[in-house]
């Protein structure tokens, strides 16, 4: 099982690098666009008190994400998953702000489904799965709303 996990880790690292590469390209495009055009924020023509809203509209905006977390790959070692929104890459390592984690749980013997509510500004997530053992090395996976939509089935 551990050997299988190592293979998966390598695969995930490759995926991560690929995704990170894609992300960088997009950022570069954005940067070019930003330097080429100064963003103009339109002057409002009315005041808030002049707005009209449907009585059912509650003025909040959020995005739901359906996440399926995998079953634990082992019955002898516990596995723990963190799904978080705030992360960066430094020196080929992902640095996660664990205070941003939306879901933290020990994997069970079964797949489990959760619905997470995200801000519209939260477009990417990271999932990190740790075997709770000495010398632990995590498996890291990513979700991107543009590519994956509103559901994420995590597999290891």
């Amino acid at each position, binding site marked *: 099982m551990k050997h299988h996990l190592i293979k998966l880790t390598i695969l995930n690292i490759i995926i991560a690098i690929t995704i990170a590469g894609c992300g960088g390209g997009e950022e570069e495009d954005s940067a070019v666009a930003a330097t080429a055009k100064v*963003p103009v924020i339109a002057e409002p023509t009315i*005041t*808030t008190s002049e707005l*009209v809203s449907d009585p059912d509209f509650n003025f*909040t905006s959020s995005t739901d994400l359906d996440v399926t977390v995998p079953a634990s790959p082992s019955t002898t070692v*516990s596995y723990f998953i963190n799904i978080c929104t705030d992360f960066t890459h430094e020196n080929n390592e992902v640095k996660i702000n*664990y205070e941003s984690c*939306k879901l933290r*749980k020990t994997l069970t013997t079964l797949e489990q489904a959760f619905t997470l509510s995200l801000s519209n500004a939260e477009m990417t997530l990271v999932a990190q799965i740790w075997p*709770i053992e000495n010398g632990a090395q995590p498996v890291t996976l990513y979700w991107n709303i543009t590519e994956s939509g509103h559901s994420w089935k995590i597999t290891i």
Partner: protein
Amino acid sequence: MFSFKRSIQCWLFVCLVVVNSTLSAAPFESCPSKAFLMQQITAQLYGVNLVTGNYSLLSDNLGTSDKINAIGFNFHDNYIYGWGYEWGTLVRIGSDFQATPIALENNPGVNFYVGDVSLNENSYYFYRKGTNYGLYKVSLDEQSSDYLNVIKVIDGADLSITIYDLAFHPDNGFAYTVDKNGVLYQINVITGASFALGNVGEIGTFGAVYFDVEGNFYISRNTDGYVFIIDVADSSPSASFFAYGPSATQNDGARCAIAPVIDESIASTTDYGDAPDSYGTTLFSNGARHGLSDIYLGNSITTEHNANVYPKTDQDDGIIFLTPLLAGSDSLIQVQATGAGYLNVWGDWDRDGEFSPQEKLISDKYMDNTSEVFLVNTSSSALNGFTWVRARFTSIPDIVASGGAPDGEVEDYRVLVTNSGNSQIQDTPYYIAFEDSWPEQGDYDMNDVVMLQNSSILLTEQFEVKQIEFQGQLKAMGADYHNGFAIQLDNILPSNVNASLVRFEINGVLQEVSAIEEGTDYLVIKITDDLRSHIQVTESCKYYKTVEGCTNSSLMTYNVTVPFITPISLNEFPQAPYNPFIFAQDATYHGDLFFHPGRALEIHLKNKMPTSKVDPSWFGVADDATQEANNYYYQTSSGLPWALAINPGSQEEWKHPIERVDLIQAYPDFQIFVETGGNKSSSWFSQSNAVNSKLY
């Protein structure tokens, strides 16, 4: 033999008179905050930071080949005085750290190791036990007729205590000391009368004792260097561990008693934690603290003159909790250590606001310039919810959770404890922004009250909510009115709350009042009756963080943990942002429409139901167009709200408009968001879509 000794003494006296006339070393420039410690058989002088016990050698050559003892700092002339064994007389030490002997009339002719300089008078007092000796005084005042003339205050037969140093109180004129059995004595040096004030609970040779300007008495034990602090005014004085100082077989201390132990005129060299002060964080609470050194956690260390207590925080970077702490199970934490030392970690498992010696996660783990992932086991008795964890890394093993250490670092973390079968779901952070003019339409600057609300739930394996936790921070208050703040969990019965395990803190301080409001149909978590009571404002800046140029260092945060007796199905549990609301404080003005409406006036998010304490007769008054039958609440006839819940995500904060700036002026995309019913410009709140000059 006798005549030979007398002739030697006469020769020495003549020499000393000559030396005395040439005293010229400059005094110390000021009354220093550091203590002085004299050690070794050939005298060496150290400077000791009492805050941490950190010490450094000031001089290993004081111009003598023998001991100097019984030292005291004289604030009348800023010199150190002591007893020089080489010359058998008083010595004076200036800023050049050279001891100069001073001839005394009526020198008792033996050496002394107990002494200090009085603050009330410019006189040096010294003591030796024994019927042939006692307590002596010598004036250091050149204008005195007794200048350098030794006077015996009391005979050793009448003052017989086994002591190794004494120090003068900064205010009351008494000298204090602790004998080898731990008995604290107060000595009236005018009469020589002594009073045993009680046993302080520590025994040993306390060779160096000091006072600070607050009247705190510090005693340093030779064998282990432990520094204890004693409140001499206490009716039952006791010695509390204060810092790990230097140990020595021979010790004597001196300090300028009118100096505070923290010198804020120089750069800080002490690292503190930032947990609430109940954990022992500030110097006042004998908090955990470390002298600046090359030993620390993570990549950097911060220093402060005194602790930044939660909700103020330090930048901590040494520990990463890769998993929550799982009660009764193994968890993973990553620790980065710079330098070599011992790591000790405590956790407040029973959430009583203290670290007990038994609440330990890691004990004396030696680390040397490394980063490691540890498997740690949390006590099975640890309560679920957020608690505080303290990590200390220092070269000293087996340290306790508070007190000073000469090197290393302390880092405090607020950490989730849960059970391995539970899931934690953290809601997206919401900024709840209110207009408090209901039922009259406001000016829509949406900053009368702005509360950042974080929340998380713990789920059982059956997908039932067993506990909810709120953490909030007041971000702005542009209100003239006195508003309370609360959160209703719609359709959740208050009788299902496990009241004995509810934990409620404001600014990290455990509250005695319950957060669960009584007499409501559904569960209401009441944070405060008056937000203004938590914030300090001035006449010129009467609002909190809404007016340009009006900064305010006040902070108001809250944490509430609410466990349920019977877990509630996730499908039946309300969703974030739940139902936060403000209400009028009782007996205060809240507009011209009502006289002191009090708790019955509530302002909620649009279409969120009021509590059972609201006065429904006020619905429909003025601009309010609530239709209870249709579940349309807190909206105008145009469908506009008095409150917004804004969720920019965890990586961005929402900045509210400055005072009297219409929301649309600050966030133009809000117009499209509203006009499209939320289908477009759903990130209207982003700073990239804002007119930043109109934001606070």
